[in-house]
C-alpha cells in the first residue's frame, strides 16, 4: 500500500516538473486563439489572449477606454492573425516581442487633433540594459521640438513624429540612466535598452538618515560610486577613497607600513584633537564616524568590507552635512551603502580580485659586511687605533681576535642580507559571489565573500569571510527590509618586527657549520661589562614556535520598516543588533632568547584574551517632503535614536613550558607568580533626538538647519545631554535669470555653513571620580576601594565650531567641473590629559586647555579634454591645504614639552601648530673641529646646545598635497593614472638621527646606514655632513636632521575592459564581463632618503580583478 502511494506521488511530481519545463520552452508565435462573442468588451478579448497564449498584454487605461466592443468568432486562429483582426476597427496598434504584447493608441483619421502635416507613429518598449526590467516614466523626446511623451508602467511608449527631410533624433532620458540619442530612421518600432549612469549617483546626497537632492543641499559632501572606487584600486575601500578625495587622508604610519592587521589612521580635514595624547584614549579621537547601510559601524568592519559589495560611498565633510550625527560627527562621516537587489530573474555575479605584493625596501640604505666592519673599526669598537688607522695590538686580545676573525669572514665573502629573511611575496585573493532577484514586491540578495590577505612578512596574514542575506519587501505603502550579515575574521601576526632583521649585522652567517641557526650574534663578552646584553639572531626566534593570532566571529542584523503615511510623509523604524566575539592568543616559545635569564620552570608564555561585544541600536524617524505652489520646496526629518554597547573581556596567562611542540596551555606548569585573572566590563548607552529641516525657494535659494541633542552615559550624571546645531545657506546661481541665459554655465552653486559638531571619542567616565576595588591585598575588615580616576567635575567637553564655504561649478556642457571648499574649524576648549606634580596625589587628570584652530581648503576639479561617442579623455586634480594653530595655552603644557625633548620635535606652544617641528638651529659641522655649530636665540654661533634656543625649524604638514591624474576611455577600455604629490613641508630624518649618529656602544653591533661611514668628518678641513665616528658622544636633535620633504608617489595605475555586448558572452551565458589590472604604490620618489616601514615594510602591488555577471 505504501509503495503504491509513493510511486503515485513520484509520478505526479515528475509530471508536474515535466509540465513545468515544457511550458518554459515554448517561445514561438504558434499560439492559437479561440474566441466567440458578440459586443464583448475589449478587456475580455485581452483576458482571452492572456489565458490562452500565456502572453502578457500591456496597455494603458486610456487605450482600454478608447476601444469599442468587439464581435468576434474565431477558432484556433494564430495569434498574430487574431491580433490583426481584433484591432481592425480599434484605435489601437500592437507590437509582439518575446512573450509580451504591447498595445498603443493610434490617432484615428478624422480626429480633430490629427495633424495637418504627415506623421508617422513610432512605438516601442524601453528596458533596463542589464536586468531587462521594463522602465516606466522614461522621457521620450524629439530633439529640437517640444514633442515628448513618456513610457507607461509597462515600459511602452508611442509618439507621432512629423515626416521631415531633416535628420530627426529621439532622446531617451531617465533618472539614474545614461541618456540615449537615437536617430529616427522612419521605422515603426524602436525598442531601447538603457544603461545605468554612475555619474548621476552624485545627484542625491545619502546621509544614512535622510536623502536630499544635491541641488537642494547646502553641505559639503561628495558621493563616489562603486565604479569610481574600482577604477583606482581593488584592495579595500579606504585605499581607494584616499586616492579619490583630497580631504580623506590616511596618515602614513612609518612604523607599521603595510601590515594588514593594523587599522589605518584616518583623518577627514585634519585633526580635531591633540595628537600626542592618542595613546591615552581607547579609541582614536580623530577618527571619522562610519555608517554602513544607515547603521553605525566600526573602522574594522569597513576595512574588512569587500569592495564588490559596495554600491556607493558618501563623505559628509562640513557641519551642515554631518551635524545630523551630532556628537560623533566632529571628524566627518563616511556613509557606505551596499548593493541593493534589483528586481528581475535570478542573476549571479562573480568577482575575483587578486594582487601580488612585494616589500618596498628602496629607502633602506644599509651597509654591507665590508663597510660595517670598517665602521666598527673606525669607531674604536675593537680597540684604540694608531695614527695609521690600525689597531694597537696587545691592549685587549679578545676584542682584537674578534676583529681579525670577522675580517677573515668578510674576506671569505660572507655578506648576509638579513632583510630578505622575514619577507615573502604575498598573493592576496578575494572572491565574491552575489546573487539577486525578485519581483515588484519581494527582492532578495545573497552574497558570499572570501578574502585572504597575506602580508609581505612571513607569518602575517588576514582572512575575512562574510555571508550576507538581504530581503526587501514592498507592498503598497509599506516596505520592510532586513539584512543579516555573518563575519569571520582570523589574523596572524608576525612574531618579530622587521627592524630586528634590518639591524642584524651583515658579516655574521645565518647558520653555523652544522646548518643550525646561530643564536648569538654578538656577545660583548670581550668588554667584560655584564650590563651589555648580547645581541641575538632574529632568525633564531623565528625558527621556534611562536603564535600571535586572533580570531573574531560576529553577526549583524539590521531591520528597517517604512510606512508611507501620505505621499509627502513617511515614517521609518529601524533596529540593529551587532554582536562580536574575539579571541586572541599569544604564545612565546620557551626556547626564545627572551627567557634565557629566566628560571627553567618559568620559561615560555601563553596569554589568552577573550572578548565579547554586543551593540544594539534603534531609531524612529518621520520624513516630510513636499513642494508647495511649485516654488516652495520643504523637506524635514525628525526622529530619535537609542543605543547600547556592552563589552566584556577576560584574560589569563600561564607560563612554564618545557617544550614548544605544543602551544596548548595544558602543558604549562602554572600561572605566573603573582598574576591575577584579568576582567573588564563596560556598558555604554546613548540617546539622541534630531531634527533637520530644509527649505528651497524656486530651487534657487536654499537654507538647511539641523538640531540634535545627544546624551551619553560617558558624560557622567551632571551633564548628560549636549546640543549640536548647524545652519547652512546655499544659492543656485545658475538658475537665476541673469545667468541662465549663459548656456555655458551648467552649474554654479555657492554654499556656506556653520555648526558645532561634537566629539565623543573619549574614554568612558574620564570626568567622573571613580573608585576601584584594590583586591591585590586583603585585610580582615572587608572590601576596600581606592580612587582609580580622580576625575574633573568641571570638565567641559571639546566643542568644535566648524565654518565652511564652498563652490560647485560646472561649465562647457559639464566638461569642466570644480568643487572648492574653504573651512575654519575651531576647537575650544581642547581636552588634554595633563600630568600633575606627584604632590597632588594624581598622576594625570583631564583638563580643558587652550584651543586649536584649523583652516584649510580643498579643491577637486576635472576637465574632459575629449568627448566623443565612444571615446573620452579626462584629466583630474585634487588639492588640499590645512594649517592648524594652538591658542590660549600659555605654559600649561610645559610638562609635555619637557618630556618630548629627546623623543621628538612636537611641542605645544601658543601660535604653534601641532605639526610644527621644533629644534635648535644648526649650521652644520665645523670643518676645523668636527663639532656641530648651533645658532642660539640671539642668532649667535655657539658649540653649546641649549633647549631654550628651540625655534620652529619646519612643519611636517605639506603646503599642498593631493592627486593628479588622467583617465582615457575608448569603447570598453578604460585606462587611468593617479599620482600623489606633496609639496612643501619638512620631515625629521629619524634614520639619520638613529643610524648615522647617536650610535652607542651597544648599537655599534647593529647594522647602520651607509652614510655613517662615508659622509663623516675625519680630519680638519673636511667639509662633512656628519660628525666623526664616536661611540660616546650623543648628538641632540637639531635642524640638521630636518629636510624638505617633497614627493611623488605612483599611487594608482589601472587598465580595464568591460563589455555587455561581446559575442563570447553568449557562449558562457553571461550578460557582462569586466577585467581590470592595477599597479598600486609602484614607485615612491622623494627629496629625502628616510627609511620607511621600520617594523613592517611598505608594499608595492600589482593586481587584477575580473567580474562576470550571469
Amino acid at each position: 500500500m505504501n509503495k503504491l502511494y509513493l510511486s503515485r506521488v513520484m509520478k505526479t511530481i515528475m509530471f508536474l516538473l515535466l509540465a513545468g519545463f515544457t511550458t518554459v520552452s515554448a517561445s514561438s508565435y504558434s499560439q492559437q486563439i479561440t474566441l466567440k462573442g458578440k459586443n464583448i468588451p475589449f478587456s475580455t478579448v485581452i483576458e482571452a489572449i492572456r489565458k490562452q497564449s500565456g502572453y502578457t498584454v500591456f496597455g494603458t487605461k486610456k487605450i482600454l477606454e478608447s476601444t469599442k466592443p468587439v464581435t468576434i468568432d474565431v477558432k484556433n486562429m494564430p495569434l498574430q492573425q487574431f491580433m490583426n483582426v481584433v484591432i481592425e476597427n480599434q484605435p489601437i496598434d500592437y507590437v509582439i516581442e518575446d512573450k509580451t504584447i504591447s498595445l498603443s493608441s493610434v490617432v484615428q483619421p478624422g480626429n480633430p487633433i490629427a495633424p495637418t502635416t504627415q506623421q508617422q507613429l513610432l512605438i516601442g518598449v524601453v528596458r533596463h540594459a542589464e536586468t531587462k526590467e521594463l522602465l516606466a516614466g522614461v522621457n521620450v523626446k524629439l530633439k529640437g521640438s517640444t514633442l515628448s511623451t513618456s513610457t507607461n508602467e509597462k515600459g511602452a511608449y508611442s509618439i507621432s513624429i512629423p515626416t521631415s527631410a531633416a535628420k530627426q533624433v529621439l532622446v531617451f532620458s531617465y533618472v539614474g540612466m545614461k541618456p540615449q540619442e537615437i536617430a529616427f530612421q522612419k521605422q515603426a518600432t524602436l525598442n531601447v535598452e538603457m544603461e545605468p549612469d554612475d555619474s548621476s549617483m552624485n545627484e542625491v546626497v545619502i546621509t544614512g538618515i535622510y536623502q536630499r537632492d544635491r541641488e537642494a543641499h547646502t553641505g559639503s559632501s561628495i558621493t563616489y560610486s562603486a565604479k569610481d572606487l574600482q577604477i583606482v584600486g581593488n584592495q579595500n575601500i579606504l585605499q581607494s577613497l584616499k586616492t579619490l578625495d583630497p580631504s580623506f587622508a590616511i596618515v602614513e604610519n612609518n612604523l607599521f607600513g603595510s601590515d594588514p592587521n593594523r587599522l589605518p589612521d584616518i583623518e577627514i580635514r585634519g585633526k580635531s584633537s591633540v595628537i600626542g595624547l592618542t595613546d591615552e584614549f581607547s579609541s582614536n579621537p580623530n577618527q571619522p564616524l562610519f555608517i554602513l547601510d544607515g547603521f553605525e559601524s566600526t573602522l574594522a568592519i569597513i576595512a574588512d568590507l569587500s569592495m564588490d559589495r559596495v554600491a556607493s560611498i558618501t563623505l559628509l565633510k562640513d557641519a551642515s552635512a554631518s551635524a545630523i550625527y551630532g556628537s560623533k560627527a566632529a571628524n566627518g562621516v563616511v556613509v557606505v551603502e551596499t548593493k541593493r537587489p534589483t528586481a528581475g530573474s535570478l542573476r549571479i555575479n562573480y568577482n575575483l580580485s587578486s594582487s601580488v605584493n612585494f616589500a618596498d625596501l628602496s629607502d633602506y640604505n644599509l651597509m654591507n659586511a665590508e663597510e660595517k666592519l670598517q665602521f666598527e673599526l673606525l669607531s674604536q669598537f675593537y680597540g684604540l687605533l694608531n695614527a695609521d688607522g690600525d689597531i694597537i695590538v696587545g691592549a685587549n686580545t679578545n676584542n682584537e681576535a674578534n676583529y681579525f676573525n670577522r675580517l677573515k669572514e668578510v674576506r671569505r665573502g660572507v655578506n648576509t642580507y638579513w632583510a630578505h629573511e622575514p619577507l615573502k611575496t604575498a598573493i592576496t585573493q578575494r572572491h565574491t559571489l552575489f546573487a539577486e532577484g525578485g519581483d515588484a514586491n519581494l527582492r532578495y540578495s545573497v552574497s558570499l565573500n572570501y578574502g585572504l590577505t597575506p602580508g609581505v612578512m612571513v607569518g602575517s596574514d588576514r582572512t575575512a569571510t562574510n555571508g550576507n542575506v538581504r530581503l526587501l519587501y514592498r507592498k503598497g505603502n509599506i516596505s520592510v527590509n532586513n539584512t543579516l550579515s555573518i563575519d569571520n575574521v582570523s589574523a596572524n601576526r608576525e612574531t618579530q618586527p622587521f627592524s630586528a632583521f634590518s639591524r642584524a649585522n651583515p658579516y655574521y652567517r645565518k647558520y653555523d657549520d652544522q646548518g643550525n641557526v646561530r643564536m648569538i650574534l654578538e656577545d660583548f663578552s670581550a668588554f667584560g661589562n655584564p650590563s651589555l646584553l648580547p645581541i641575538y639572531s632574529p632568525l633564531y626566534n623565528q625558527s621556534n614556535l611562536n603564535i600571535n593570532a586572533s580570531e573574531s566571529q560576529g553577526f549583524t542584523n539590521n531591520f528597517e520598516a517604512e510606512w508611507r503615511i501620505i505621499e509627502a510623509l513617511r515614517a521609518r523604524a529601524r533596529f540593529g543588533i551587532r554582536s562580536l566575539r574575539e579571541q586572541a592568543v599569544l604564545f612565546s616559545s620557551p626556547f626564545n632568547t627572551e627567557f634565557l635569564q629566566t628560571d627553567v620552570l618559568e620559561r615560555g608564555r601563553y596569554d589568552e584574551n577573550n572578548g565579547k561585544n554586543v551593540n544594539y541600536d534603534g531609531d524612529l524617524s518621520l520624513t516630510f517632503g513636499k513642494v508647495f505652489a511649485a516654488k516652495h520646496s520643504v523637506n524635514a526629518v525628525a526622529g530619535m535614536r537609542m543605543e547600547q554597547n556592552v563589552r566584556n573581556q577576560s584574560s589569563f596567562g600561564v607560563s612554564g613550558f618545557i617544550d614548544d611542540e605544543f602551544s596548548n596551555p595544558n602543558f604549562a606548569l602554572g600561572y605566573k607568580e603573582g598574576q591575577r585573572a584579568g576582567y573588564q566590563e563596560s556598558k555604554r548607552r546613548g540617546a539622541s533626538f534630531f531634527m533637520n529641516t530644509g527649505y528651497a525657494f524656486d530651487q534657487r535659494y536654499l537654507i538647511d538647519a539641523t538640531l540634535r541633542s545627544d546624551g551619553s552615559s560617558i558624560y557622567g550624571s551632571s551633564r548628560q545631554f549636549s546640543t549640536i546645531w548647524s545652519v547652512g545657506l546655499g544659492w543656485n546661481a545658475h538658475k537665476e535669470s541673469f545667468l541662465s541665459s549663459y548656456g555655458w554655465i551648467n552649474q554654479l552653486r555657492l554654499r556656506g555653513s556653520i555648526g558645532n559638531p561634537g566629539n565623543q571619542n573619549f574614554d568612558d567616565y574620564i570626568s567622573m571620580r571613580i573608585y576601584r576595588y584594590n583586591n591585590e591585598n586583603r585585610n580582615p575588615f572587608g572590601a576596600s576601594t581606592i580612587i582609580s580616576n580622580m576625575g574633573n567635575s568641571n570638565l567641559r567637553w571639546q566643542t568644535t565650531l566648524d565654518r565652511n564655504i564652498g563652490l560647485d561649478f560646472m561649465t562647457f556642457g559639464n566638461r569642466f567641473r570644480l568643487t572648492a571648499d574653504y573651512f575654519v574649524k575651531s576647537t575650544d576648549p581642547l581636552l588634554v590629559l595633563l600630568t600633575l606634580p606627584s604632590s597632588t596625589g594624581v598622576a594625570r587628570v583631564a583638563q580643558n586647555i587652550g584651543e586649536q584652530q584649523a583652516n584649510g581648503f580643498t579643491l577637486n576639479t576635472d576637465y574632459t579634454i575629449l568627448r566623443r561617442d565612444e571615446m573620452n579623455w579626462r584629466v583630474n586634480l585634487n588639492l588640499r591645504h590645512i594649517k592648524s594653530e594652538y591658542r590660549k595655552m600659555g605654559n600649561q603644557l610645559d610638562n609635555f614639552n619637557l618630556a618630548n625633548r629627546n623623543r621628538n620635535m612636537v611641542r605645544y606652544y601658543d601660535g604653534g601648530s601641532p605639526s610644527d617641528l621644533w629644534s635648535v638651529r644648526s649650521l652644520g659641522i665645523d670643518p676645523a673641529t668636527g663639532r656641530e655649530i648651533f645658532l642660539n636665540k640671539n642668532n649667535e654661533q655657539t658649540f653649546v646646545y641649549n633647549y631654550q634656543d628651540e625655534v620652529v625649524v619646519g612643519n611636517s604638514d605639506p603646503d599642498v598635497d593631493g592627486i593628479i591624474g588622467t583617465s582615457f576611455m575608448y569603447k570598453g577600455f578604460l585606462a587611468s593614472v593617479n599620482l600623489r604629490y606633496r609639496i612643501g613641508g619638512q620631515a625629521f630624518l629619524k634614520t639619520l638621527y638613529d643610524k648615522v649618529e647617536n650610535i652607542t656602544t651597544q648599537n655599534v653591533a647593529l647594522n647602520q646606514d651607509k652614510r655613517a661611514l662615508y659622509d663623516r668628518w675625519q680630519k680638519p678641513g673636511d667639509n662633512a655632513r656628519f660628525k666623526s665616528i664616536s661611540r660616546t658622544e650623543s648628538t641632540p636633535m637639531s635642524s640638521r636632521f630636518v629636510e624638505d620633504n617633497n614627493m611623488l608617489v605612483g599611487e594608482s595605475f589601472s587598465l580595464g575592459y568591460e563589455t555587455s555586448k561581446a559575442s563570447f558572452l553568449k557562449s558562457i551565458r553571461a550578460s557582462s564581463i569586466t577585467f581590470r589590472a592595477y599597479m598600486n604604490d609602484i614607485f615612491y620618489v622623494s627629496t629625502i632618503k628616510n627609511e620607511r616601514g621600520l617594523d613592517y615594510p611598505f608594499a608595492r602591488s600589482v593586481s587584477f580583478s575580473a567580474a562576470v555577471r550571469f
Partner: protein
Amino acid sequence: MKIRYKIFFCLLLSLFTLSCNKWVDVKPTDRLGEDQLFVDPAGYTKAINGVYVEMANTALYGQEMTTGAVDVLAQYYVLTSSTHRYFDHTTFVYTSGKVKPTFDNAWKKAYELIANCNVIIEKCGDAPSQKLPEPYYGIIKGEAIALRAFLHHAPSFWSYLQRGE
C-alpha cells in the same frame, strides 16, 4: 483610521522621551562612581579600608618602607654582588637609576593615599548626617585625619636620610 495611527505614533514617541534620562544613566559594575560609594556607612568603611589596604603596597609599608630599602639603608644586610638590586642603596648612591624609583614611588603612593584621605574627609562633611550617623562619623573622619597625618610623616622620613642626618 489615519488619525488613529497618528495618535498612536505620537504616544509611542512620548513614551521614549520619558525614559531617556534614566536610559543614559549607566552605573559601571566593576567600578564605583563616588556617588555610588558614599551613600551609607558601609561605603565610607570601604573607602577608609582602601587606604589601609593600599598602605600595604610594596612601594610603601608592604616592603620598601619596612623590610626593604629602609632596612638596607640601615645596613642590616651585607650585599657584595654589584648587580644586586639593593647594592646601590647599601652604598648610598642616591642618584642611581635603581635607587631613584624607590623614593619616587614611595612619595607618589603616599601622596595618592593622602589625596584619598582628603576626599574621605570632604565627603564626611562637618557633622554626622543621614548617610553617616554617629558613631561612624567620628570613627571614619577621625581615622582619615590620622592617616593623613601619618602619611605626611612617613615620606618626610626619606628627606632626613637624603640630607644626611
